[in-house]
């Protein structure tokens, strides 16, 4: 028989839970911590002073609360002092940011994606941001978001179809470049990480069943079921862009035919609106804009894509019965311009019981979601064992 958890394990668990709450809210009063964690008031006091001693959080007297009684101290994440680096490698652009505990973006750099190796520009972004940091601040690692298939165990990018990547160990490469600064570098899929960010501090805070459909050039989904991320056995799950919706459809870059991506991806929208050869977010927005202004070809393209978007979402809703579907990346604009088609198709094709409570939403964190999600991943180890 296994012995119960030791006192030390319980303490580590409680410290982690407390720090995670402070991290999610940014700041929270001791009284709220007591009621949220269900721990004794004096335990909260002891745990908080442990965390304060290590500089992870700080405590201060609150401003006017307007309530009776002695106001409870406010515990605040030391965002400026405790931070990670986050990067997002998109098809067209790379972005890097310094993200403080509490999910605050403190600094950021951005450029177009170089055709070659992305590690040198990422390193110089990080070095330039690091040069502005206070000396008493501590870096707890980095997280990278990539539009590709990422192996969970070591962060190897197995395939980045639109990046032209095959077996790229981008995380390990970056860590080797900056071994003193970055204790570890974790890598995740952009849709998964966006879903994680929206679930932690965005549109999906109160939901535990979320599907975040993200489109850059290809389509992917971050799935959260029962409050947990669903990424599959190896970490490659959520590739909804490659579910076959049209067996006799167009060939897909993956070698299959009629994948969802071939009907709702950027390339499909641009081809249908007579803009073959163009690419990128600006081009997608131009089609949506033209459709709203009355360009018949663009309108037909947006309607077609909206219709097929509805087909795919109906499938996902039937399988996962989510409470929230978020359309991110360029799909945000496509959804808002074609919501009537998407909704109609969903209402027509999905089972009534599966769809009745599903909310269709756009992201609350916008383009910061991949960065904030990558930061969540990088903070994970600290939150699991704050004093470790």
């Amino acid at each position, binding site marked *: 028989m296994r012995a119960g958890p030791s006192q030390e394990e319980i303490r580590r668990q409680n410290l982690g839970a407390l720090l995670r709450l402070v991290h999610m809210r940014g700041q929270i009063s001791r009284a709220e911590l007591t009621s949220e964690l269900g721990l004794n008031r004096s335990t909260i006091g002891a745990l908080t002073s442990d965390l304060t001693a290590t500089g992870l959080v700080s405590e201060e007297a609150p401003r006017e609360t307007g309530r009776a009684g002695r106001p409870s101290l406010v515990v605040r994440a030391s965002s400026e002092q405790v931070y990670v680096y986050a990067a997002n490698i998109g098809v067209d652009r790379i972005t890097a940011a310094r993200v403080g505990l509490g999910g605050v973006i403190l600094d950021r750099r951005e450029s177009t994606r170089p055709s070659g190796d992305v590690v040198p520009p990422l390193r110089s972004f990080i070095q330039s941001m690091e040069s502005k940091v206070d000396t008493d601040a501590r870096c707890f690692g980095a997280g990278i978001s990539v539009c590709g298939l990422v192996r969970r165990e070591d962060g190897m990018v197995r395939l980045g179809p639109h990046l032209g990547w095959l077996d790229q160990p981008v995380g390990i490469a970056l860590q080797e470049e900056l071994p003193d600064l970055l204790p570890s570098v974790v890598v995740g899929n952009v849709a998964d990480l966006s879903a994680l960010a929206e679930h932690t501090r965005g549109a999906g805070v109160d939901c535990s069943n979320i599907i975040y459909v993200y489109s850059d050039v290809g389509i992917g989904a971050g799935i959260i079921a029962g409050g947990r991320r669903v990424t599959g056995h190896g970490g490659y799950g959520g590739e909804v862009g490659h579910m076959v919706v049209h067996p006799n459809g167009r060939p897909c870059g993956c070698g299959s035919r009629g994948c969802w991506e071939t009907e709702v991806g950027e390339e499909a929208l641009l081809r249908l609106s007579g803009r073959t050869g163009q690419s990128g977010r600006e081009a997608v927005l131009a089609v949506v804009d033209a459709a709203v202004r009355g360009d018949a070809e663009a309108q037909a393209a947006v309607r077609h894509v909206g219709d097929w978007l509805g087909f795919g979402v109906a499938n996902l809703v039937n399988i996962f019965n989510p409470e929230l579907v978020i359309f991110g990346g360029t799909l945000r604009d496509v959804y808002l311009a074609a*919501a009537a088609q998407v909704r109609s198709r969903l209402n027509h094709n999905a089972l*009534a019981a599966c*769809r009745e*409570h599903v909310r269709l939403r*756009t992201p609350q964190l916008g383009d910061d979601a991949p960065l904030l999600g990558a930061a969540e991943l990088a903070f994970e180890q600290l939150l699991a064992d704050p004093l470790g």
Partner: protein
Amino acid sequence: MTPGDTAAPPLLELRGINKSFGPVHVLRDVDFTVRAGEVTALVGDNGAGKSTLVKCIGGIYSTDNGETHIDGQKVNIHGPRDAAHNGIEIVYQDLALCDNLDIVQNMFLGREKRSGLILDEPAMEELAAKTLAGLSVRTVKSVRQLVSSLSGGQRQTVAIAKAVLWNSRLVILDEPTAALGVAQTAQVLELVRRLADNGLAVVLISHNMNDVFAVSDRIAALYLGRMAAQVRATDVTHAQVVELITAGRSGSLGLQPEEAL
């Protein structure tokens, strides 16, 4: 609050509203329900009575007969002040903002806060900034900007923030995305959705079916002064809503042939 939570009485319920202008019978026995935490889209062809209905709710027009219930309690609304007192605010299509005043002055116009004899500018400024921040509005740089310097989308945002400022519970928006570009339409739609997600009841008047489906939980279709149907957005298709607007019925939904005269 979850949409479709039917246990609590609806925030606003109109029963059997009639309104005539002389010989013209504009609203005929209209029933209309609005729930907190939901966006209810009010759709209908030109002249169907959308604006008249909204003006009846806002106390601009008196109704000939029918009942208004708020939180299940019968109330009498005799003017815009009664409506405001009940937490009802309307944002009209022309926004009714003063170009020569700044954002704070506009938001508090006619209802300025005072401390003693003078205006309490710091308090108003703080409240205005807090309201805009609460709506996650990041596009406005300073609350002391003149409204004339704002873009169409920003003006709409200020007008909506002005309506939200007064602890309002029901905000009615008349064509908030008309005359806006794509990017600004998207921002305003997200703002409309956020109002409801924050617990307010929202009525959205729009002719754009994409806007309607993008944000609403329920759709109420008026047809020649009658309420053709009030349906959940998860139960209908675009084609059905268009039929309700243009013909007053769609299959088993809406007015039956003998009544749709």
